């Protein structure tokens, strides 16, 4: 009986190729849209959190001025000094490092090529704090830091733009009006989620930057890394109190600096991408719904024809159960075929999309099953329920159906 029903169902599918194709199409579009959108969103979210953790998960960044919120004025806030970093290092407990960081945009010249990039001035601890690796050469040492030596470590993009295929270590690069020796090359971190190139930078001792480029002893920001196991919140509040004290802020006055931790940044950013994923998913869910309505339409439009057909089958001696089994198998076969094609298309589109967006491809079994299940349920319900109603009629009523 089962084999017969399978045979009958397959004949039915072949006999109504157009109807079968349209049914499948609705499911394919719905399933593939939802899966692709959610997979791309998940990839973007993962890319953001990967990037945050590449910064280091236990990092505090102190900047002058209030960064967030309306009506906050950051213009008048004084810059930091190297002494601020030293004070943090010596007075706040549980820290791995506290490094002063300054930056400046410059034009670099080497080997008759030039390239606009930014220079970061800091101490040797900056590399460990920012989780940078060296692929070739070395980072600057304490003597070079103290002396303000003309040495620098360059990012992969800068190396490529200025030196092409060469290993840049040992070469000279002209930074504004002075010449600087490249002593090391940073490992590539790639593009950040916000779209900027993290490898487009030059790092030199802070003193070198201050003396030769900015001409001041100001420090743009402080980067503080908390030791593993130490409380990041405790460190954060200690840093805040210390800074208020050093900057002579009266009790009751607002801070004229801000302390952000990477967890906070991570939450903000991944919150944003999660909202975007949700939006994409919602748009895709609409297409799933539209696909579902398409399936319903096709199934309901063919009810008259199917009811007569069921009448014929009953008249020549088919039992109700046999007719129903046939229609159920037909609906399940079409729905699962559509679902599988949808999943395959979605996988291909997701892999292509994530590669294009440069985010990781993550297979999400839940959304695959969910969208497959939803479309399949629509296909089965709207293929089967009208058939069940018809099969319960007296054969002669089914035959007379208009």
């Amino acid at each position, binding site marked *: *009986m089962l084999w*017969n029903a399978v*045979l*009958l169902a397959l*004949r039915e599918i072949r*006999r*109504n190729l157009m109807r079968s194709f349209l049914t499948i199409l609705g499911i394919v579009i719905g399933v593939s849209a939802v899966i692709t959108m959610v997979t791309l969103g998940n990839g973007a979210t993962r890319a953001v959190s990967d990037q945050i953790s590449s910064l280091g998960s236990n990092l505090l960044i102190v900047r002058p001025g209030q960064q967030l919120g309306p009506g906050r004025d950051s213009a008048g806030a004084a810059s930091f000094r190297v002494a601020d970093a030293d004070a943090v290092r010596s007075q706040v407990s549980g820290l791995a490092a506290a490094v002063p960081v300054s930056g400046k945009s410059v034009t670099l010249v080497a080997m008759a090529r030039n390239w606009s990039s930014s220079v970061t001035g800091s101490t040797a601890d900056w590399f460990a704090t920012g989780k940078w690796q060296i692929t070739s050469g070395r980072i600057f040492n304490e003597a070079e830091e103290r002396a303000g030596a003309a040495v620098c470590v360059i990012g992969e993009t800068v190396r490529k733009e200025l030196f092409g295929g060469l290993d840049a270590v040992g070469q000279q690069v002209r930074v504004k009006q002075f010449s600087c020796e490249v002593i090391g090359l940073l490992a590539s971190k790639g593009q950040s989620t916000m779209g900027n190139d993290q490898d487009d930078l030059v790092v030199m001792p802070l003193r070198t930057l201050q003396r030769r480029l900015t001409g001041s002893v100001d420090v743009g920001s402080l980067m503080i890394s908390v030791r593993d196991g130490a409380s990041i919140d405790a460190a954060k509040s200690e840093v805040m109190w210390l800074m208020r004290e050093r900057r002579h802020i009266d009790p009751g006055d607002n801070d004229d600096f801000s302390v952000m931790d990477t967890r906070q940044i991570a939450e903000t950013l991944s919150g944003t991408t999660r909202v975007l994923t949700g939006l994409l998913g919602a748009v895709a869910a609409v297409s799933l719904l539209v696909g579902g309505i398409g399936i319903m339409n096709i199934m309901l439009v063919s009810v008259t*024809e199917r009811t*007569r*057909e069921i*009448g*014929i*089958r*009953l*008249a*020549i*001696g*088919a*039992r*109700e*159960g*046999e007719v129903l089994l046939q229609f159920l198998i037909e609906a399940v076969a079409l729905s699962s075929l559509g679902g599988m094609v949808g999943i395959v298309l979605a996988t291909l589109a997701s892999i292509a999309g994530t590669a294009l967006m440069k985010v990781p491809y993550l297979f999400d079994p839940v959304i695959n099953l969910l969208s497959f299940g939803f479309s399949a349920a629509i296909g089965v319900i709207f293929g089967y329920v009208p058939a069940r109603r018809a099969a319960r009629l*007296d*054969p*002669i009523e089914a*035959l007379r159906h208009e």
Partner: protein
Amino acid sequence: MSVPLIALREVTRCFGHGAAAFQALRGVDLSIEAGEFVAIMGPSGSGKSLLMNILGCLDTPSGGSYRFQGLEVDSLDRDQRALLRRHALGFIFQGFNLLARTSAQENVELPLLYRGEPAARRHLLAREALAAVGLEGWGHHTPAELSGGQQQRVAIARALVTEPSVLLADEPTGNLDTERSREIMDLLVALNRDKGLTVVMVTHEADMAEYAHRIVRLVDGRIASDVRRAAPVCSEGA
């Protein structure tokens, strides 16, 4: 005396309830022996098609008793009636009722599929049945590619492929021109004469009823006359 193939006693069929109730059949007594060729005639609304549907177990009577080969049909449930249709009854309709977009061969095979016949036997029997109605080699055509007469032949082949005890024909020539009608009637007569197939046919055309050996006339849900015209065919040895 043997049990008649079909025995109706006081069969009624009502539609609706209460004041709106309408009695379409008002107590029909009818007995049909194996091998007969019976035409049921009557004006529109006389209940002849309804009677045919009850005979074919497509509809159920409201009252009275219907025995098929001595078996009380009213006591059967839906599935048992389906099995009776599958094994003992062949049906042809005015509108042919073939499956659209399905080849003649597959249409004829359909009842065999429900019987669970193996594929090779299905193909063979269906080809033989098509040949018996003069459609040898037309098996791969779909109903849309066949004329009305040919479609009705396919329907007859489908009804006969299971070798039923009785062929029930509801206005089999209603949609056909005179020429095609005669061909179909000749075919039914031949089947009745040569194979002893019992044929019960509903028609409102006197010309067609001429082919039958017995004419039952229905008026307002009652049998008005029951005339045997020619020598009875293949009486049951009684």
